């Protein structure tokens, strides 16, 4: 029900940040992401950052895919 995509933080001031989504800049609200840092990725829904994206977990999910895939090719 809830559309959201990752944006990269470019600059921040108070509750607001400028973030990049595929080369576009948009002001977003970051009040519920504690201590967000420049260059971090956040998930944005309706102009509001709702979570930081954990790159390590993203990597592990892709590794899980590879693992399940290999299990398939080795009968």
């Amino acid at each position, binding site marked *: *029900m809830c559309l*959201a*995509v990752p944006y990269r933080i470019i600059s921040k001031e108070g509750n607001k940040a400028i973030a990049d989504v595929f080369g576009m800049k948009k002001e977003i609200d970051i009040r519920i*992401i504690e201590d967000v840092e420049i260059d971090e990725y956040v998930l944005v829904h309706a102009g*509001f950052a709702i979570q930081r994206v954990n790159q390590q977990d993203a990597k592990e*999910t*892709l590794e899980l*895919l*590879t693992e*399940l895939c290999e299990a398939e090719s080795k009968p």
Partner: protein
Amino acid sequence: MTDKFRNNPELKPLLNKIKHDVAALDGKALPLKFMEVCGTHTVSILKFGFRHYFKDSIKFLSGPGCPVCVTSACDIDKMIYLAQQGHHIVTFGDLIKVPGTHSSLEKEIAKGATVDVVYSPLDALNIARNTKKEVNFIAVGFETTIPVIAGLVLDTYAQQIKNLSILCLIKTMPNVLRFLLSQLKGEIDGMIMPGHVSVIIGSEPYEFIPREYGIPCTVAGFEPVDLGLGIQALVSQIALGSPAVDNRYKRMVKSEGNRAAQELISAVFQECDVAWRGFGSIPKSGLCLNEEFINFDAEKRFHIKVNDEVVQSACICGDIIAGRKSPIDCTLFRKKCTPENPIGPCMVSFEGACAAFYKYGE
């Protein structure tokens, strides 16, 4: 990064494996029935071709996860009432076409009502600053959207904007799932939990589903790889006979959710009973403004009057949202009810089951 989750050469072998695993399941009637609770999942499943790909092995049922579809006709009438008072209505796009008992926002626009469609609720602040009219934001949505609406209320308060209030039609997920599962009993083989609702509330609130109902659950994202891994988790739980809540969207969803978001929500709202289209009133399945912010409640501020008259209609959207019936069971479907002239909300919303069935020729 998104690209690796969208177009990944390793996905096809995985999906192939899932098909084999489903065929090898012992004593399970096929196709398996998986319910996706989130409208964006409904869209992704159609858009990336999953429904077609798994057509003999998995049937996807759409749950009550489209905020537009679950909004009752009486609540739509409230929006129309506000528009008719000459207020400036600010809303998300899909709501415009949803019919109330006698009209829709779209018809009111044609009669001269002012209605703005926005990307973010926070856009209502600027709109209110630039008009003398009363501005009403139509607050529909689930947990994902609630922090944004809480932010709007707090900013309106802090910036002392006097002409902005919200029509609060917010709904929450856990108790409607409980209600739905008590109705469906044993008819579902697995549930794909709403990814971005889970970002806010975490995966813990779903623990009762495998525990009390024995139904496998997965928290999944919306890209093809996310969906593939989510579906794999469900099939694997079924094969092992050990239902659980498997989080396959860890890069976004923590088991405890986003605490700061939860605090923001409870600073502004409190739990209440709300009416769902097709389900009626469900205890503690929605939020209303708490005492401190009650002045921002458009319903109270403008003493909204709507008839509680029920217009008899053959529309079965309520049963469809509950997973009891399919759009093709409806006598209006494709005949009187089409995307051009929708009678029920499931035909209006981009992600409504009727609109999806209509578009994809099922």
